[in-house]
């Protein structure tokens, strides 16, 4: 029994001590440590050319975690990464290396040792005056400052010990002018070309471009990761298309086939069959939604297609992503203030509206609308609803004529928001890599995690961490089965070794988990690694901890943060309880229980009263909520009405003007160029307008090919104002969207999002 208890208590510490042999090893600073990530990256073979074996953290420049998490998610989307690398052409590896030789800095090998020395000193200090140790280092930190489990500490260590990769503007070598796309490409290419598998990349240049072009990102404030994703994809689209336009002008004289050739060097794996190679973002992320509106007066069904780059779904407590998507497509009555303007009967009529997915995207980005505007608080509030998401998904809400309506998706990345509200907090990404399982990307820190870890962010667990954006990518059942078979094989060897290592009395750890527990180990220099001469002068400022933004703010950040003391104290082992003790304890406990029970009888009465009170409170709250909802509905109805009016006005204007596209479209295009990304999504959705059932034009099956020829003559005098890739210049819309997104109090309303908001 004693032995049992020993095992049991070891189990308590098992999270930090992978094996009994580990602690003494860690005490020796000279022994090179292997990080959990390095452990998982063992036997990777030689460096690959496709970038799939690069696992870099990203430096946080103060609240730039929104950017880091999204960039990581995009990097590990294989088709997206390949498209970015290969468009317009791939930079030859040699020139990359030449560029990178300057950019990849290795830290001083002694930094690590110095840190150790400092830690030892600190430890000595601590031994003499424990209180001094407590007071010594950032007292406002909720965790013990030397807690090597803390992400802050691990990030510091990562920054100090891992190779640092600087990105550099290389736009000219792509034949493009510097833009958000080229800086993204810089990051991706640097990663691909890096000789190190792990490290920390500094997206400084990317952020510079972002901040230069978008005012809202200039502050060091917390930003919305989904908004950023949307902006980034839109920007990439517009950058690429703008460059292609320019390119076309430059090479106008050349035979068209050649220019196509130069473009078609792009990604073979994206499976793109489209002749227009600038559309690769569309081909990956874009899907088509059809909104079917059935007028209840004349029974006429009108359809309108719009494209989306991601879907934003409303959340309900205790629901699933599947259900949220189904609700998204649920029938909706347009009545009362929210009537539908029917062209057939002329006038506002009651109608039924449904949104269905007509074309399924290859990468489905799902935005869970965790931030909801609350009328009474006049601000956005975070919803902590429990919303479960499966590892695989199919869409129920497809139209009958959708191609491949049973397409299987697999979850490959989750962006998690940690924090109590929308205005502060932290983002991390959990990503399934191609062959190294799931990894947690927390700014500078990259850690392997178990597959089950992905399920910790349904929203019901303590810690304020909830999934915010889910990335599903298309897959096949065969691929899934193959992967499952591999999982079987990969872990089949583990149980044996696990079995002899002993187990806990309480919770045995599933065999697949064992590697996670080495998380406590301190990353260190790999002796085989080439050590550069450069040294990081100081650790950069740490990101604000999500849990304590106020605390962080009040604590003056030292210019030179104290060297993180490397704790040498092994994790506290829970002393094994002797059986005797446990007996005594249980006896004591028993008598205590008796006392407690009596006390509880008394308390019960109190509790009952309490409950009554709580009940009242709850009822009041429910009433409030109802009122709130009504307000919301009214507001939305108002918005709708406004939108309808606007659309009518627009329609009238359009009808006045020429039916020819260019004239009609160009002012808007001008506006779009001036307004940056704002109305890009609008333009994108207009691309598909011709599919409107009431349109005079026949639907254009393949929108792209004829575009250049059609537009070129018109274009030449107005080169700056046109985007020739516009498939159809005719932008007349009879059924303009009834939803006025801009006026909505949605946070995403700051610019028009391609994602579809259900109002």
């Amino acid at each position, binding site marked *: *029994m004693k032995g*049992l208890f020993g095992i049991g208590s070891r189990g*308590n510490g098992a*999270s930090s001590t992978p094996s009994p042999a580990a602690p003494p090893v860690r005490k020796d600073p000279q022994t090179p440590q292997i990080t959990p990530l390095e452990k998982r990256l063992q036997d990777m073979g030689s460096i690959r050319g496709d970038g799939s074996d690069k696992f870099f953290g990203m430096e946080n420049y103060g609240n730039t975690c929104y950017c880091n998490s999204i960039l990581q998610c995009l990097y590990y989307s294989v088709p997206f990464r390949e498209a970015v690398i290969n468009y317009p052409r791939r930079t030859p590896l040699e020139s990359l290396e030449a560029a990178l030789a300057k950019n990849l800095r290795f830290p001083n090998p002694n930094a690590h040792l110095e840190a150790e020395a400092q830690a030892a000193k600190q430890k000595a200090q601590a031994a003499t005056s424990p209180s001094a140790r407590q007071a010594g280092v950032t007292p406002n930190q909720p965790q013990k400052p030397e807690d090597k489990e803390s*992400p802050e500490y691990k990030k510091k260590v990562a920054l100090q010990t891992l190779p640092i990769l600087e990105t550099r503007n290389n736009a000219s070598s792509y034949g493009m002018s510097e833009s958000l796309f080229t800086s993204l490409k810089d990051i991706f290419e640097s990663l691909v070309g890096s000789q190190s598998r792990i490290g920390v990349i500094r997206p400084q240049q990317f952020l510079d471009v972002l901040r230069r072009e978008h005012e809202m990102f200039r502050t060091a404030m917390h930003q919305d990761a989904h908004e950023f994703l949307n902006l980034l994809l839109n920007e990439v689209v517009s950058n690429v298309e703008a460059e292609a336009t320019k390119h076309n002008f430059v090479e106008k004289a050349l035979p068209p086939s050649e220019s196509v050739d130069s473009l078609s060097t792009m990604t073979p794996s994206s499976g793109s069959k489209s002749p227009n190679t600038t559309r690769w973002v569309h081909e990956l992320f874009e899907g088509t939604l059809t909104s079917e509106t059935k007028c209840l007066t004349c029974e006429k069904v009108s359809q309108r297609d719009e494209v989306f780059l991601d879907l934003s779904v409303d959340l309900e407590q*205790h*629901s*699933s992503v*599947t*259900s949220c998507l189904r609700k998204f497509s649920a029938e909706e009555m347009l009545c009362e203030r929210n009537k539908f303007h029917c062209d057939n009967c002329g006038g506002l009529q009651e109608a039924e509206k449904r949104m269905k997915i007509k074309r399924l995207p290859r990468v489905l980005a799902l935005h869970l609308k965790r931030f909801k505007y*609350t009328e009474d608080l006049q601000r956005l*509030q975070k919803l*902590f609803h429990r919303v*479960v998401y*499966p590892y*695989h998904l*199919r869409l129920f809400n497809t139209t009958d004529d959708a191609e491949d*309506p*049973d397409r299987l*998706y697999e979850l490959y990345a989750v962006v*998690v928001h*940690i924090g*109590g509200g929308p205005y502060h907090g932290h983002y*991390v990404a959990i990503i399934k890599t191609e062959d190294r399982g799931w990894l947690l990307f927390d700014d500078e820190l990259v850690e392997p995690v*178990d597959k089950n870890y992905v399920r*910790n962010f349904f929203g*019901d*667990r*303590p*810690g*304020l*961490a909830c999934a915010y954006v889910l990335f599903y990518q298309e897959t096949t*059942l065969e691929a899934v089965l193959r992967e*499952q078979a591999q*999982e*079987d094989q990969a872990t089949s060897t583990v149980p044996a070794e*696990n*079995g002899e290592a002993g*187990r806990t*009395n*309480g*919770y*045995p750890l*599933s*065999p697949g988990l064992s590697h*996670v527990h080495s*998380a406590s180990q301190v990353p260190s220099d790999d002796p085989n690694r080439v050590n550069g001469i450069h040294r990081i002068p100081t650790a950069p400022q740490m990101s604000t901890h999500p*849990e304590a933004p106020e605390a962080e703010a009040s604590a003056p950040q030292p210019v030179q943060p104290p060297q993180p003391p490397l704790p040498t104290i092994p994790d506290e082992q829970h002393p094994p*309880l002797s059986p005797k003790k446990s*007996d005594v304890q*249980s006896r004591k*406990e028993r008598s205590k*229980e008796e006392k407690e029970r009596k006390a509880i009888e008394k308390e*019960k009465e109190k*509790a009952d009263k*309490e409950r009554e009170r709580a*009940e009242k*409170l*709850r009822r009041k*709250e429910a009433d409030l909520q109802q009122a709130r909802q009504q307000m919301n509905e009214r507001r939305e109805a108002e918005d709708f009405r406004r939108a309808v009016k606007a659309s009518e006005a627009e329609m009238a204007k359009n009808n006045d003007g020429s039916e020819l596209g260019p004239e009609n479209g160009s002012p808007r295009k001008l506006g779009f160029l001036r307004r940056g990304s704002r109305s890009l999504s609008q333009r994108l959705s207009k691309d598909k307008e011709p599919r409107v059932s009431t349109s005079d034009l026949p639907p254009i099956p393949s929108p792209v090919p004829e575009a250049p020829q059609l537009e070129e003559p018109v274009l030449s005098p107005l080169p700056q104002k046109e985007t020739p890739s516009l498939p159809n210049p005719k932008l007349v819309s009879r059924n303009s969207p009834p939803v006025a997104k801009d006026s909505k109090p949605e946070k995403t309303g700051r610019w028009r999002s391609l994602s579809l908001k259900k109002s």
Partner: protein
Amino acid sequence: MFVLPPPPPRYTIPVAYQAGAANGMAVPVVETNNTITHPEGGCPLQVGEALFLVPTVDSNVLIRDCAAGTYTLKDDLLLATPPPHPSEAPIVNPNPLATVPSPPTSGVKLCLVSLDPRKKPPTFLKTAVVAPQFGDGNPALAPPAPPAKEKDAQKRRKPKNNIIKSSSSFVSRVITHETSTKRLNDRDQNGVFAFANINRAFQWLDLSSASKEEHLTKVLFTKAHMLCHDINDMTKTSSHLDIVMGSSAGDIIWYEPMSQKYARINKNGVINNSPVTHIKWLPGSENLFLASHANGVLVVYDKEKEDALFTPEAPAHPEKDHSRLPLEILKSVNSRNQKSNPISLWKLANQKISHFSFSPDQRHLAVVLEDGSLRLMDYLKEEVLDIFRSYYGGLICVCWSPDGKYIVTGGQDDLLTIWSFPERKIVARCQGHNSWVSAVAFDPWRCDQKTYRFGSVGDDCRLLLWDFSVGMLHRPRAVRSHLDVRSLGSITNKLEQHHQNSTRQQHRSSIVGPGSLSTHRNRADSGGTRFRSDSDRTEKFVDGDFDPVENHPVEPRSRTALLPPIMSKVVGEDPICWLGFQNDCIMTSSLEGHIRTWDRPSDSVVHK
């Protein structure tokens, strides 16, 4: 209006939710007593006098739902969540990204037991079950002591250790009710006992008692949580109940509540150290039970055998490529070495086995896994017959129709799926849950040879009731003009499948009783495309190079019938995780410990 009580205390307090809530309620106190509430006319389940349109071959026929009426909520018993053991101080990790795995938990599950023969569900099997015992023919498993044959209740063997006086570190303590002996003596011998797990506690309740919220006995374990439990139907008497329970530690407890004796099996996970996800006595066996472990292993244990360190035994047929088989037999029931546990040990996959269920004819086993597969086994022969797949996501629960013809699964695709066992195919998908489906059960009192009633509960806090009849199921939702060739596989495959289908069908028809045999034959033959096969075909599959297991593809939505629920109701504020039908009520239990009981409509009579 029925008002649900405030969220019950848990010690996994949903801090996130509290912080997020505008006016967070007071920090809940940890209660240690069960409470019961009798909501006034609350939460009725209305099963409409629905008429439903049943398309048959010639015309649509209206069928009146015979089981209409209103189920009324009788009471809501809230089990007290025990405070953590002192030795297990809750480790507060301020880092929400901590990669430390959390211990497996499950919500409250119930085992109901009654000696009243009237409470027995009706049986639909035409003939008595004549399935051989598991391990029949293995002399090593033959009962060694003939005196055990005596059916005298007094002679039932009990576990060795007294749980009250136990000094084990596994069991923390046992709290017996002051008047439990008196209560046991005075009670109606035909009343219903319930056993329920919550957190580290395991409670014994008398549901027929006036004070049913007061437990008879509460066993508190130190660290491990009991995740599942089962009562042996064969050995139950008024003075003896054999209960096995599986824990999050992998350990299994054999517990006899009347004498407060217990034994620990798979101690410290010596045989398998992965959590026990589901446990069931083998039908018709007094000693053997089957446990599924989270690492994809199915183990048959004997309650009276000692543990022994398990080493996989050499396969009986080394010539076969065992890595390819869907079932890796690491120890066969036919093994000569049966002195100690396990009796048999099969590895299905490296994925968690969520649930399993024995067929009413006691020959077959349906197992559902986290990888989304439903595996049908002939467990007596230790072979897998079919592998079906969920629409997507893992499967969570499974059950058989009382006549053994249908299997219903629920999973992470928010769907319930009906599979036909004799026809080896998907029959319909049932859409109605808003989240994952956690439990499903047939209502045998509302089933007959033509119509079936089953219920399901899920993480969406809902209870749904479903009806289906044989006629309405064989219609796809929409017939496509063009066939999706890709999803169907090649034509040859399809034909091969048909061939196999009909072979199996004949093979299986014996188990569903003579009455149903003709129906299936007829349906199969009317299909026109099906081949008749000679009987030696089956042989060929068994020893030929064919994989005898059929891996069924996922049927596209357009070719599968979609069934709506007849009733859907939010019954609580926390995920519901168990559902049971009794002759007079429906019961559910939830993650946080609410056990709700609905009386059946009094006016409705079982229509036969």
